[in-house]
């Protein structure tokens, strides 16, 4: 079967710095894949290249949404990429602070709704129904993610862990077939991390989404991932199951090297 996301030969240069160096990654349907690597390896840059926030210097990003033909994402704007069914969260939380929790999720629904200016001003029946449906759908998503008690709170007033979950809820609201999570457990306590672990598996099993996540919490990565991709200095150095990666000498060297630099 075609991979749902196929990254081929992706290179991203910032002036003299090669943040990504011909990276190939393929994600299969229904998979939870992890992208790991030391800080500054280029993981976030890869997400930005896939989602159209950066335009890669070279390479192809192809998607094959379930039940649809293969399609290229090269050169598309971020909002079009999202329309095609890829949704992401951010390493440094980027919620809309001036809105309530529910409205944040409703922003996720935006690209699946139609109502325009005249619809907003004159509120015909179709628009009213659409709006009601959007509220209902968004509320349902909040229930699934376990944030329903915060519906009408301002997003900025949420506790940290809840803000991270809200980012996932918002991404889920765009109806993606692939979720890209950038360090979703960063800053969470062990209890919150455990809940996140359950949530990610639940999403894959019940919401029909595949997941690619960047994560530093190795315990979480090892327990969740079907497949792990390792990058270091912009190059992909390994791929495999948790067990394979754990025992891969190249990976160990990359991480130990990283640690000895820190020390």
């Amino acid at each position, binding site marked *: 079967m075609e991979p749902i996301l196929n990254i081929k030969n992706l290179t991203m240069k910032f002036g003299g710095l090669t943040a990504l160096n011909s990276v190939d990654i393929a994600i299969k349907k229904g998979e939870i894949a992890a992208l790991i690597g030391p800080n500054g390896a280029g993981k976030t840059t890869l997400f930005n290249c896939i*989602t159209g*926030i950066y335009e890669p210097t070279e390479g192809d990003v192809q998607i094959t949404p379930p039940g649809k033909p293969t399609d290229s994402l090269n050169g598309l*704007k*971020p*909002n079009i990429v*999202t*329309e095609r069914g890829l*949704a*992401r969260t*951010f390493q440094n939380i*980027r*919620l*809309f*602070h*001036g*809105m*309530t929790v*529910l*409205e944040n999720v*409703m*922003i*996720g629904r*935006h*690209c*699946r*709704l139609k*109502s*325009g*200016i005249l*619809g*907003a*001003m004159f*509120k015909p029946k179709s628009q009213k129904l659409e*709006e*009601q*449906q*959007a*509220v*209902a759908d968004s*509320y349902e998503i909040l229930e699934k993610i376990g944030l329903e008690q915060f*519906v*009408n709170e*301002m997003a900025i*007033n949420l506790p940290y862990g809840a803000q991270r979950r809200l980012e996932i809820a*918002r*991404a889920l609201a*765009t109806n993606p077939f692939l979720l890209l999570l950038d360090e979703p457990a960063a800053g969470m306590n062990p209890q919150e991390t455990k809940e996140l672990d359950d949530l990610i598996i639940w999403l894959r099993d019940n919401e029909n989404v595949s997941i690619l996540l960047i994560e530093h919490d190795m315990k979480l990565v090892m327990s969740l991932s079907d497949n792990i991709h390792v990058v270091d200095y912009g190059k992909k150095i390994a791929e495999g199951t948790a067990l394979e990666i754990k025992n891969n000498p190249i990976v160990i060297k990359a991480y130990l090297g990283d640690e000895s630099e820190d020390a």
Partner: protein
Amino acid sequence: MITKNEIKQSFFLSMWAIILTFPLMVIKVNTIKNIVIFRWWNILYVAIGAFVASLLWNYLLRRKEEGAKKDTKDSIPIVHRLLQNQKFRLPFLATIGVIALVYPFVTPMYHTSIMISALVYVILGLGLNIVVGLAGLLDLGYVFFYAIGAYAYALLNLHFGISFWIVLPLSALLGALFGTLLGYPVLRLRGDYLAIVTLGFGEIIRIVLENWVEFSNGPRGIRNIPGPDSFGIELTQHQSVIYIYFIIIAVCLITIFFVQRLENSRIGRAWIAMRDDEIACQAMGIDKTKTKLTAFALGATWAGLAGVIFAAKTSYINPMSFTIWESITILCVVVIGGMGSAVGVIAGALVLILLPEYLRAVAEYRMLVFGALQVVVMVFKPEGLIEAVRKTYKYKKIKE
């Protein structure tokens, strides 16, 4: 309560103020007799004034910090609490309605006329609030669209005798059109850059109007613009002021109605998302280009309307009515009233426009007072007089 340190700081500040204002407040040159007069007493006033102001400033800052430490989550402004409470909502609105209704009949014409000016700013403020308050695009050239509306009515009426009632909706469309046109070139700009470029556009329209004499009659302006068409009924001067008053009340209500709907619609949410985080908003599937253009267009619409009413009310317009200061006044209305808050903007317009009219002392130093107010608001209440409150939703399950 007041610490020693604060007193010391205020003392030095007042010394500094004395030195700073010495040439202005103390020295006075009489050029006729060629003598210099020293007004030493003024030192005392400056010193005491600066000292007290500084103490007050410190005191208020401290109070604000103490207030922030407490839980301020449910500090919803009183107006919003009145509006949200089912029991008070209707009486509250009814009271305002009755006051608005009897106002022109119980007050002299002069007051009605001033109120009309203030209400023009309510419309302008609500329009600019879409661009600045909701979409977060700092537009310093808003007067552009105001001028378009005013000149559209003046010229169309002068040359073709087209009625107020036809130009009014037309000017809304013209505003939207020019909003889109102006939006295109500035799409890639944000923040300070956007402010500078829009400021330029605002000045361009004034310069064009001043110099394209065949088109706009240049600096002499256009005279004898008729008031709103009253369908053949003869009105005295007082009656026609009342007539315009009710027209503008109606247009205000329409503006409030539509702006409120827009704010809580799919489009309005996209504006706020773009304001809060441009990258995240695109990543959530929102088309940035479209969102910016709709904000510019729908903001400009109301300025077009306001321009027509302004021209009909004053019966005389010239390019000097549309300077950068006009844009800044409208911006002050939005920022001081409360960015993104319709209720705040309405209150802001009434306070900022009515105050200088009634307090002549304020009128002379209008821009100085606005500037000072702006600083005070930014420091003590950055969300404005009446802060924005988002709509809350009740969840109803929809049957499949």
